[in-house]
């Protein structure tokens, strides 16, 4: 089902696109539709996995800040930056 939250649309990929991505603990990410793959570092992998189950960027930022002991502002900035990378590598 499409996510109607404008904030989500602004910052993350469509939920169905995120959910289809296969991730491994090593940070290897594979898109089974396009065949593309890339490597994600620890924080990026954490963002991706959080985003696969929770579509609210603010909730993701809170969880990320807790996991990596950073401020929510820093976490939000990292999320935005990673979302930009994701949009470039995932069609």
């Amino acid at each position, binding site marked *: 089902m499409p996510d109607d939250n404008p904030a989500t649309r602004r910052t993350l990929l469509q939920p169905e696109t995120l959910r289809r991505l296969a991730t491994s603990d090593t940070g290897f990410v594979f898109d089974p*539709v396009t065949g593309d*793959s890339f490597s994600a570092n620890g924080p990026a992998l954490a963002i991706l996995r959080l985003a696969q189950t929770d579509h609210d960027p603010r909730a993701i930022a809170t969880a990320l800040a807790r996991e990596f002991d950073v401020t929510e502002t820093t976490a939000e900035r990292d999320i935005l930056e990673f979302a930009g990378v994701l949009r470039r590598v995932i*069609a």
Partner: protein
Amino acid sequence: MSVLTIAITGMNARADNPGPGVAVARCLVECGRDDIRLVGLGYDALEPGLYLGDLFDATYLLPWPSAGKDAYLAHLREIHAIEHVDAIIPCLDAEIPACIASGPELRAMGIRTFLPDQAGFAMRSKDRLPEAAEAAGVATPETRRISGPGFFHACIAEGWSYPLVVKGAFYDAAIVHTPQQGIAAFERLAAQWGHPVLAQKLVTGEEFNLCAVGDGEGGMLGAVMMKKRAVTDKGKGWAGVCIADEALHDAAARLIRTLKWRGPCEVEAIRDRAGTHHLIEINPRFPAWVYFTHGVGRNLPAALLDLMWGRAPSFAPARVGSMFIRYAHDVIVPMAGFEAVVTNGSHTFAGATP
């Protein structure tokens, strides 16, 4: 236990553009059946598959498809008298029309095939592909039969632009950027593959391929989808990854249903930035990467044998994410082996049991 003899063509295996025959043979050797033996059929003494005794019990040379149906059948009868062939899997586009036309004679000899009829085969030909695509509701770039080099200057006024693709009747294609390049490609392809030569508008995007078997009643069986990760100078896959793209699967299923395709096929499509798949070609045979279907758990040549003998094949889910990478492999051929092919047109390997 009775042993079935399966003849396979397409023994050419040049690294930049290999034929599918050796890959089909590998699939059948590794499919787990111990009641089949393989015979390789090639056209030239330097086709590597002719020397692969680990796959084939015997190999033979055939006359080129341009020699016609009668020559093809005459040679096949000679081979059949020695090898008692139970089925043949043609793997080259150019020989399939003769194989279809020879259907009654092959059946009379007890040789099974699993191919479309002439009308079905013609419907997927490169020059009629837009009709088939439209009927199936699949996008395809505008394609034009070219009767002469004048097209390459006149096409701009008709709404075409460069670069565009020039394609041979059976194989080969070139992306051309100028009328001069177009004319050179036209003349080369016409000389090599005959007419028609086709011009196709260029679609940019990523290429995706799907291999499956059509059951002849509209069903698509055992689809395996692949994205090329590395290609040769001719654009042939050197590495690829198994994908699961529902949109590509559905488009191919509609095409196969529309054509009521019977037999192996490969659907080639370009996915543009908007995510639309544009049909580029339907090849009427297994592709050279067909060993990958076995690699991801769906051995399509083995499934084809099931269909030939009236059994419904079963398929495990394809292992999405698996990858293939090709490499070049040198085969050492004793002088007697090359001598046998050059002088007799055949090569029987030690331990073979015709």
